[in-house]
């Protein structure tokens, strides 16, 4: 595969493994050397082995389509992405700081609302958002932390710096694939580990358990923690089962739980009811309790909200956390960091134009072909317009949408997402990628070493979501000198 690598060129972007001169970055040298030495046949055989491993391990995700739900094998590219521990240490500090500020913000919104009174964030942008849940006013979860699990999407621009693109504070997913990607690489490219000391990722479930256990309202040596899933037809069901098993916790569906007259949550077991201390909620808050939120929900547990407000059960993420998971609120995060922590932001945010501001809107409408326009409140890459890649008709459509509902749209400059060598067909090609680390916070804060790297498998594409054909890579944080 030597020839293939020698022709590799990623121009106009920061490439994760290869310098503009075409030589491997220092940290990637041993890996690239090994991959170069593999024959084309050998590399293809490794890819087949990875596909077989994925099928046999049953790593899958569900895609919704008109033809019914399909259980798809997890897409994986076997060339790892490599980052130095030194660089990662800075990112980690930035993420911890950000998560602390976001949680102080959520706690403030549902309690004293000082940040509105002090004029740092306009109250109406938050209180009018569909992510603001009035039912949560006055709640005080343990440690003042609402978003116990945060998945922040990072991208690296052409300047080589990491930027936070968005913070997922509702029910972020993908962490199981981070763990499984490492497992697959170990199976199919075992030699590549010889020259590296790579920070392990497979202790995530035990970190998660520790974080959740700290939320228990009862003092117990081993609190009863459960993972609440909407069920097998959810796209992330694989992950729910993976995490429950990794934590030795029960994987429950709404019908397995009930709230008794004492306002405590119980699960139905073969030995009768057992009290639950902490619920890791993988179900949208709108569906979690038909008494408090959507009445038509059959997935939830009637009375759950009552029990949580009474302090009888811990719920992560706390209902209402999504109020900070809003692309308008995103624009204010650097201000929050200065306001709550009196610190300078350690990790960059992408400059954001809020269409609700007249001046910003004018700029956006005049520069649609340069900008990425996003609805404030959608996930999974839906409803996004990438200006430079869209035609005139789409520009006009988005102009109308923005004028109709300015609060619901933001715009950002198009970032030149970094690339990494990716094995496509029988060639090694540059493909754009992002990175989703996970931040756990209750008594302490902890960040995964690396995270889930998602790759846009189509040439030039910036859409990395697995539901839209994106792939993934094992992500290494490499310690020490090579």
């Amino acid at each position, binding site marked *: 595969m030597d020839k293939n690598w020698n022709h590799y060129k990623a121009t106009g972007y920061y490439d994760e493994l290869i310098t503009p001169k075409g030589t491997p970055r220092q940290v990637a040298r041993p890996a690239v050397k090994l991959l170069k030495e593999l024959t084309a046949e050998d590399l293809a055989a490794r890819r087949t082995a990875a596909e077989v491993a994925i*099928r*046999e*391990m*049953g790593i899958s995700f569900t895609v919704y389509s008109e033809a019914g739900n399909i259980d798809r094998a997890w897409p994986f590219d076997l060339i790892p992405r490599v980052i130095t521990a030194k660089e990662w240490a800075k990112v980690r500090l930035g993420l911890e700081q950000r998560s602390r500020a976001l949680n102080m913000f959520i706690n403030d919104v549902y309690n004293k609302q000082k940040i509105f009174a002090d004029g740092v964030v306009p109250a109406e942008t938050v209180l009018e958002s569909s992510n603001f849940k009035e039912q949560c006013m006055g709640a005080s979860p343990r440690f003042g932390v609402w978003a116990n699990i945060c998945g922040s999407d990072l991208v690296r621009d052409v300047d080589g710096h990491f930027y936070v693109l968005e913070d997922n504070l509702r029910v972020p997913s993908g962490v199981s694939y981070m763990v499984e990607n490492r497992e697959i690489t170990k199976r199919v490219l075992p030699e590549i580990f010889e020259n590296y000391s790579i920070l392990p990722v497979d202790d995530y479930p035990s970190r998660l358990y520790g974080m959740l256990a700290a939320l228990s309202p009862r003092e117990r040596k081993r609190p*009863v923690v459960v*993972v609440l899933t909407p069920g*097998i037809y959810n796209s992330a069901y694989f992950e729910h*089962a*993976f995490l*429950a*098993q990794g934590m030795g*916790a*029960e*994987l*429950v*569906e709404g*019908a*397995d739980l*009930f709230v008794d007259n004492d306002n405590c949550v119980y*699960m*139905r*077991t*073969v*030995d*009768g*009811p*057992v009290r639950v201390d902490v619920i890791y909620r993988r179900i949208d808050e709108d569906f979690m309790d038909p008494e408090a939120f959507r009445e038509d929900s059959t997935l939830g547990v009637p009375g759950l909200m009552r029990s949580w407000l009474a302090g009888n059960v811990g719920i992560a993420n706390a209902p209402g956390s999504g109020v900070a998971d809003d692309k308008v609120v995103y624009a204010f995060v650097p201000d929050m960091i200065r306001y709550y922590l009196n610190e300078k932001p350690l990790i960059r945010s992408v400059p954001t134009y809020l269409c609700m501001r007249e001046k910003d809107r004018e700029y956006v409408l005049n520069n649609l072909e340069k900008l990425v326009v996003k609805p404030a409140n959608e996930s999974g890459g839906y409803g996004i317009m990438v200006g430079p890649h869209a035609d005139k008709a789409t520009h006009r459509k988005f102009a109308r949408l923005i004028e109709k509902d300015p609060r619901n749209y933001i715009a950002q400059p198009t970032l030149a997402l970094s690339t990494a060598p990716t094995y496509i067909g029988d060639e090694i090609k540059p493909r754009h990628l992002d990175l989703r680390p996970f931040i756990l916070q209750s008594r302490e804060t902890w960040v995964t070493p690396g995270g889930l790297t998602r790759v846009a498998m189509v040439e030039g594409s910036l859409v990395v979501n697995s539901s839209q054909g994106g792939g993934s890579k094992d992500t290494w944080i490499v310690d020490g000198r090579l």
Partner: protein
Amino acid sequence: MIMLSRVAERVYWMARYIERAEDTARLVAAYNHLVMDIPRGSQPGWEILVRILDSDPVFDEWFNVRNEQNVLRLLIGEADAVCSIPYAVKAARENVRTTRDVLPDEVWELVNELYLYTSEASENSVGRRNRQQYLEQVIQRCQVINGVLRSTLCRDHSYRFIKLGQLLERADMTTRIIDVGASDFLEREGAAQGIEHLLWGTLLRSMSALGAYRRMIGPQVEKNAAVNFVFMEQTFPRSVRFCIRGIREELGPLTNNKAALRAVERTRRKLRNFDSSEFDQDALHRYIDDLQLIISELHLSVQSSWFHRDG
């Protein structure tokens, strides 16, 4: 040790479906073997397999003529037919997929591999050429799954409900094989003259009982002794008596077990003093009918005691 009622129900069914897939494969394999041994014209016909599995209505939904090709298409080739091997495997997999958190990792991988195997190979294994290899694969893979469960699963509630499912299914399957097998073969006694031992040998083989029978009873396979053996032999792990005893042991440590233990007692009373030489064909058939009813009541009491309890 906590066990959700829903999870208990799913691992129970997982075990039943794995056992069903294995037993169905055993049955077809044994019959396949028999067909090659006996002279043309004496064969009791392939539809007997459909009857053993209580699947006449399902058969009629899919096919008209009861011949070798159609019967095997139903039992091997049609993943959507409830009595087929791929259907049982798929149902087992769905149950494991939703209970992975209480089972050892390998169980999911093995059941998933079995599923991938049957979804790829089933359609091409209807014909005689690939059939035997397919059936052997299914049997072996089910045995591996059971082996992993035995050697890695803690003896807690999940193990208990898995055992309950497996033993109930096995006891049920054993009575089915004897019931329909016996009556049909007897009807054809004229035609089957001189090969009765071959036919009964086949039935024993389908339960992996032939070798044990020979060592304990003798080399000649004879109807009454064979029926007694698979019903009553307390050392043979597929006998009805052995299965019922196992069920009683597993029920012991469970709370709320009174109703299920009562159902077990009824089965044991029914089995006590069983002697097939005292029965003619009709009486044996009635006896087995009763026994199957009691076994299905046992299933219902497990269901209402642990799976669908309120509060």
